[in-house]
């Protein structure tokens, strides 16, 4: 399983959209997550530790955005299960909530 360190992308994760500022959730999804999912067939462990902190919009856009981009929910939920967040265990719960919200919205 490929490990992806968010800190390789940025130590200061930014806003939701690219047009709102640097190191956005949208940029992380497009340049890191989607590419790595394709390369590794969804076998990813995203390491969240080491970054300054995450705004909720970044988390929603980066991970919930995968569902809105058409990535199969089984793959995204597996990525949620494999999240590594020793420093802030609540991040794993929040990301899973955003993904489930996106799934519910898409299926409604």
């Amino acid at each position, binding site marked *: 399983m490929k490990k992806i360190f968010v800190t390789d992308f940025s130590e200061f994760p*930014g*806003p*939701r959209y690219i047009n709102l500022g640097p190191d956005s959730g949208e940029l992380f999804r497009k340049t890191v997550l989607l590419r790595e999912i394709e390369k590794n067939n969804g076998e990813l462990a995203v390491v969240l530790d080491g970054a300054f902190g*995450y705004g909720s*919009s970044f988390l*929603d856009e980066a991970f919930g955005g995968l569902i809105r981009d058409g990535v199969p929910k089984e793959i995204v939920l597996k990525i949620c299960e494999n999240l590594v967040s020793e420093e802030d265990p*609540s991040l794993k719960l*929040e990301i899973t909530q955003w993904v489930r919200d996106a799934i519910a919205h898409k299926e409604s």
Partner: protein
Amino acid sequence: MATEPNSGADIGSIVGWTFAFVGVACTLWGWRVRGQQQKWLAKKKDIHDSVDRAIKALTEFEDCAMNFWTEKDTKITKHHILALHRRLIVACKQLSELNDNELPNDYLVDLRKHATYEYDSTKRPISSDSKRVSSIALASGRLLNSSFLTKSWKANPKPR
């Protein structure tokens, strides 16, 4: 040859040694109990100090988030909010380690969501009676009133 019966001096010696052994055993047991009590009290004090630190971190986070959203010329930035949320997480993790209760992750998620969701794109200040402000206060109050942040002399209170 018939054995001679024990003399009064021998019986007195046995009784004396028995009392001595019982006395030493009682003293050792007393020391052990006292040591356990002192250790338990020290641990409880650590837990209560840790509760105080977590409550302080929570109230700082709440005040800062309120100020960020409602004050027109606030000096609070989104980085302050993230830094204070991290301090709150660290304080809660420390407490969780000491009292063996699970982290109140759902409350911590609610606090971050209400304080940071769309904070880059939402126009500020917002009204002090807006839904976001109420939600921050509500989430903060729920964590504050939870058993996770309640001081107790019970052996190990159940979380929430």
